[in-house]
C-alpha cells in the first residue's frame, strides 16, 4: 500500500510502485481532471503539482510521490476561483478543453514564481503544454489577466 496526499486528502492505494501517478490519480483515486495525452512528458496534459512544483504525472512513478503533497486541477481552488481559472473563463480560453487542466496547473506555478510575467516568460513557462485547438493567444492573455487579478487580490488582503 502506498500513502498519498492528494488535494489535502489522504489515500492509501494498492498500486504497482512503478505505475505513473497519472494512472493512480485517474483509475484508482478516480480524479479524472488530470489528462492522458502522450505518456512521455511531451504534451503537459497530465501536469499536477508535487510539493508545489509542476510535474508531468505520466512519467512520475507513484512511489516518488509517496507521502508528498499532490495537487490536481480539482484541488487548485475550491470554487474554480484561482486567478488563472477566473482569467481562463474571462478570456474564453478553452475550445475542446482537454489540455487546459494541464495548462492551468503550469500557469499556476508560473504565476506564483513570477507575479508579473512578460510574453517571453509566459512562452518559456508554457512551451511544454500542447494545445491542438490553438488557444495559445488566449492563454497568454489569460495569464496576463490572472497576474493582474493576483496582484489586486494580494493588494486587497
Amino acid at each position: 500500500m502506498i500513502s498519498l496526499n492528494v488535494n489535502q486528502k489522504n489515500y492509501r492505494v494498492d498500486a504497482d510502485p512503478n505505475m505513473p501517478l497519472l494512472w493512480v490519480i485517474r483509475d484508482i483515486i478516480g480524479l479524472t481532471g488530470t489528462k492522458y495525452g502522450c505518456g512521455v512528458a511531451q504534451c503537459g496534459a497530465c501536469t499536477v503539482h508535487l510539493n508545489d512544483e509542476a510535474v508531468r504525472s505520466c512519467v512520475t512513478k507513484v512511489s516518488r510521490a509517496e507521502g508528498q503533497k499532490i495537487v490536481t486541477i480539482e484541488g487548485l481552488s475550491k470554487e474554480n476561483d484561482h486567478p488563472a481559472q477566473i482569467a481562463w473563463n474571462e478570456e474564453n480560453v478553452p475550445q475542446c478543453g482537454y489540455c487546459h487542466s494541464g495548462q492551468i496547473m503550469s500557469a499556476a506555478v508560473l504565476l506564483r514564481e513570477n507575479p508579473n510575467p512578460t510574453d517571453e516568460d509566459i512562452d518559456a513557462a508554457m512551451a511544454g503544454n500542447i494545445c491542438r485547438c490553438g488557444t495559445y493567444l488566449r492563454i497568454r492573455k489569460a495569464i496576463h489577466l490572472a497576474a493582474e487579478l493576483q496582484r489586486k487580490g494580494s493588494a486587497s488582503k
Partner: protein
Amino acid sequence: MSTSNISRRNFLRTTGISGAALCLGFMFSSSTEDADVINTGAADPSEIELNAWIKIDASGKVTLVDHRAEMGQGSYQSVPQILAEELEVNLKDVNIIFAQGNKEKYGNQITGGSSTIRGSYKNLLKLGATARVMLTAAAAAKWKVPVTECYAEAGHIIHRPSSKRFHYGELVNDAAKLEAPKDIVLKPKSAYKLIRQPLHRQDTPLKTNGVAGFGLDKKLPGMLYATVERNPRLRGKVKSYDDSAALKVPGVKKVFKVQMGVFKTFREGVAIVADSTWAAMQGKKALKVDWDDTGFDHVNTADIYISLEEKLKVEEGLILKKQGDPETAISIAAKKLDIIYQTPYQSHSAMEPVNCVAHYQGDKVEIWGPIQAPEWVQEYIAGQLGWAKENVIVNMTFLGGGFGRKAFMDYPHEATMISKEMGAPVQVVWTREDDATQGPYRPGFSYRCQGAIENGNITALKFRMAGQNNDHWRDGPSNKANRSTSEGFLKPYYDSIKNISFAEVVFETPIPTMWWRSVYASTNGFAYESFLDEMAHAAGKDPLDLRRQYLTDQRSQKLIDKMEEVSGWKNKRNNEGYGTAITECFSSTVGQVVKVSKNADGRLKIDHVWAVMDCGWYVNPDIVKAQVEGAILMGLGAATIHEITFKDGLVEQRNFYDYKMPRITDMPPIDVFIMENDEDAGGVGEPGLPAFAPALTNAIFDLTGKRIRKLPFDLTKV
C-alpha cells in the same frame, strides 16, 4: 405515408416527462433545412418518431439539447444560444445536455463539414420561437387577456398592462395542450439579444476545474480497461501471438484476438484487458504478435509522391468540372505556367487519444465516447451485430478534439466486441502511439496546375489533383471524379475566367484515410491559391488586385476591401513580405493576409496574420474568432512542422517527439474580422484553415523570391 402528409398534421396531448413538460421537436423531411415544428408530446410514436430540443418542466427548469458533438468548436454554446434567443430564456438558467445518437429524432448528427449551425439554425430559431408563442398563448388564456398584451422575457410571460407574470413552469401544462402554431414570425436580426453577442461559453467553467467529462473520463462500476495491439501496417490479419509475458503482468486479465470494422473492411488486433489502464499498457508492451499482411503493399512515402507525379504527367484523370477549352487556350497562350504542388499525409492527433467505453449486455449495448457521428455508430454497430438500432445506445461525451478522426466507427465497434468477450463494461484506450501510427490520415496529394496568360489576363486554368479519395477507400473504387476536387476554389472565378477544368487522377494505397479539418480544401487551397499567386506574378499583377479583378461579385469585393484595409496591404515597407490567399470551405469564405520579415539573425518570422471571415449569419462572434485562430495554428503545424510518413508500410512517427505540434512559441499574432451581411450561415469550425498555408508561402515569396511548392517546409530554413 408521405412526409408532407405527416408534416401538415399537428398533434396535441400532454407528455409524460416530469409530469408536465413541453417538448417540441421537428418533423424532418428529406431536407433538414426547413422542417416543421410540432408538439412532440402529442405524437403517436407508431406513426412518426420525434425528438425534443427543448424541455420545460413544471418547476420552470429549461433543458436544451445539443444534438451535435462538442469537440471544441462550440456547439454546446451555439445551439442553446440560438434556442434561447427565440425562447426568451437566460442561458445561465438552462441545463444543456447532449443528445444520444438518433437519426429519426435529430436528423443528421454527424459533426463534420462545419455543418452544425449552417445545417440547423433556421430550425432551431423556429423551435425556440414556437415554444415561446405557445407559452404566451397559454398565459393569455389563463389571464383571459389578448395575446398581443403579453410578451416573453427571461423565462416568464408578462402581461404588459398589469405587469402580472408567470414563469414558464406555471404555463407548461397548458402550453403542452396547444397545437404548435404554423406561421411563426422570427425576430429580425436587430432584435437579437443573445445571438451575435460574444457570450461566455457554458462549457468553459467545466473545462477549468476538471469537471468536464471527456470519453476517457467515463467510469462505470466494474469497468475494465483495454489496449489493443493492431496491425502496424494498418491492414491485414493476426497470424499468431504469444501472450505468455503479457498475462504475467499484474492486473492483466485476458488477451484475445479482436476484429474492428473499418468501413467495408476489417482490421485485426489483439486485445489486452486489465484492471487499470497502466496494466493494459504494460501487457501490450509484453505481447508478441506475428502479422499477416499478405496482399497489402508496404508503402513508402517517397514512392507515393513519385507515382503521383508520374501519373500527373500522363493522365488526364476523371473530369469533375470543365468549362470552355482549357487545353486549347493553354496550347496557344503566349505565357503559360505548369507547376506541381505537394501536400503531406497528416494525423488528426487530437489531444484526447481515441478511446471508447462499451457495455455489452446480451441484448443491448451502451456506448460512451468522444464520438462525432453517434447515429452512424448506432447504425453501424447494430448492423454488425444484426440488431435493431434501438438496442445500440450511443452517448456522446465531450470530445478532447476530433478534427474528423472521431467520425469513424472503428473504435466503438472494437470496444463493443471487447466488452462482449469480457461480459463487462470495458474502456478501450488508444495510446498516443496507437493514435499516431494507426490512422486514418488526411491523404497526401500532388497537384498539377496549368494556366494561360494573354495580355496580362488569365485565359485558362487547368487543375489536376492526384491522391487518395476518402470516398474511394470507403466505398471501393469509383469511376466518378472526387466531388471535392475543386473544394476551396471560389465559385465566382467560373464567371470571370472562361476556360477552367478540375480533374481527379485516381490513386490507391492500403493507407486508411479520413476527413481532416477542412478536408480537401486544406490541401487544394494550398495548390490553387499558390498557383493564382504565381499567375499574378507572371501576369505582372498585384496578387490581391488579381483576386479583385476576377472575383467580381459584391460579396468577394467587400471581403477583399476589408482584407486590404485591415492588413495595410498597400502600405508594405521594405524588408516585409505580404502574402494573401482566399479560400471557400463549407459555404464560408476566408481571406487571409500574412506578413513576414527576417529577424536580425536572418531567421524568418511571421509578424502578423489578418483573417477575414465571411460566414454569413453567425451566432457567437467570439467563437467564430476562436475557431479561425485555432484553424490558423492547425494550418501552421501542417504547413511547417509535422507530417506523417511511411516506410515499408509502417508509419514513421509515434508520438509528439517526432510528430511535433506547434507550441505557444509558434503562435503568430492573429486578428480575425467577421463580415456583416444578410447571407445564410456558412461553416465556422473549419473554413479558417485552408488559406493560411498559401498566404504564408506567398508572403515568403514576396519577401525572398523563394517559391515553396511542397509542404511541410521548415520555417527556420527559409
